[in-house]
């Protein structure tokens, strides 16, 4: 879980930084989006790097889900008779929403790819103009799309808050002081990524980017 999760978090950071290029203008953003398809050229043919990265990420996502499923099935088998009286869980809200949160994130990722990668669910869907796709996507009259994105990103934030701390712990973080640092670091990472991702749709919604 930890290793695949770290791979996915690294991708999330780079993806967020790429998104923020929308504030540098249409030409710059579109140039960046097209450059993504040319990374590694001329050593690699056009879009090859992108497909390598997509393969690695897909393997990481599948391995992450397989590991989570194994843990969930073991947890279910370990407690066949439920408690009649179960207290609200004392750990963090993030920790107890990991499994359903993960399912929501998976559904969001599928929608997100159909929306802004393939363009099937995008009102514009023009692969040559990603800037226009983003602006059309988060237009004020499509507020429900922005709402869904916001919910999904906040879910990602909660997932990361527990996930990042848990990854440090799984990889051997062992002191009380380190635990406080790992928890603080996970919170900062979650908030920073949430803010970085949400600023784009809200900039379009408020007309800052058009």
């Amino acid at each position, binding site marked *: 879980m930890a290793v695949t999760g770290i791979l996915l978090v690294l991708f999330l950071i780079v993806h967020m930084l790429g998104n923020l290029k929308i504030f540098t203008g249409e030409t710059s953003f579109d140039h960046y989006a097209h450059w993504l398809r040319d990374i590694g050229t001329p050593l690699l043919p056009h879009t090859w790097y992108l497909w390598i990265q997509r393969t690695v990420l897909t393997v990481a996502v599948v391995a992450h889900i397989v590991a989570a499923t194994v843990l969930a099935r073991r947890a279910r088998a370990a407690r066949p008779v*439920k408690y009649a009286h179960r207290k609200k869980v004392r750990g963090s809200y993030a920790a107890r929403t990991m499994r359903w949160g993960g399912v929501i994130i998976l559904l969001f990722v599928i929608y997100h790819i159909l929306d802004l990668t393939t363009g099937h669910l995008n009102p514009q869907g023009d692969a040559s103009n990603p800037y226009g796709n983003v602006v059309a996507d988060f237009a004020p009259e499509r507020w429900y799309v922005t709402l869904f994105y916001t919910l999904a990103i906040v879910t990602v934030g909660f997932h990361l808050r527990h996930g990042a701390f848990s990854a440090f712990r799984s990889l051997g*973080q062992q002191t009380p002081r380190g635990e406080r640092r790992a928890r603080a670091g996970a919170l900062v990472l979650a908030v920073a990524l949430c803010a970085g991702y949400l600023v784009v749709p809200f900039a379009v919604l408020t007309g800052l980017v058009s």
Partner: protein
Amino acid sequence: MNLTLRIWRQKGPEDKGRMVTYPVDDVSPDMSFLEMLDVLNERLILAGEDPVAFDHDCREGICGMCGLMINGDAHGPQRGTTACQLHMRQFTDGETIDIEPWRASAFPVIKDLVVNRGAFDKIIAAGGYITAPTGSAPEAHSTPVAKANADAAFESAACIGCGACVAACPNGSGMLFTAAKLTQLSLLPQGQPERYTRVIGMVDAHDEAGFGGCTNAGECTPACPKGIPLNTIGRLNRDYLAATTKGAGNTPGA
């Protein structure tokens, strides 16, 4: 105090079991939780009914025998306290209290509130010891131990093996117990020779016993009557990683 108890009654391992309601009157707030159950049982015996079976031994909070899920809290609402050291003043007059056994497939119910915690013994048998000639106690100063290590090892050694960590864990994992029993040895010089075979053996025994996997949910430490810290599991993880990368080649014959 007048209380209403809803207690899990199960005649034996094969019985399906159910929650049964018992009113208990005239409970003193100074009684311990187990004394309150004793009062109920005396009345049940006088009425010719089967008394409620529950585990207990020292009633001083150090043996680890008692273990009840009280209103969904392992060992009840007071932190750092075993059920035997919990007093009725923690509850209010007229309250309904739900009492259930630990719920885990590795801890099958024997009767009513008594569960078989033999799975913990299997984890200990898989490595929770050191192989050393015993005899009279050695001179304490002959093996120097850093104070910080001694303190952390002592923190782990406080584990009484009651099973509250498993009962509270949303995954039914016994990782806090396993980590406590492991790190009390791996922090001390006497535990070094078998350090890496121990961690593999104990984690394997834990998984084979049918406990769930740890997801660092953090439910165990608040439930632990001895307050074993959550980072103990990090020490186990680090040893496990070291053992799986180094292999088990540091023990003769392994």
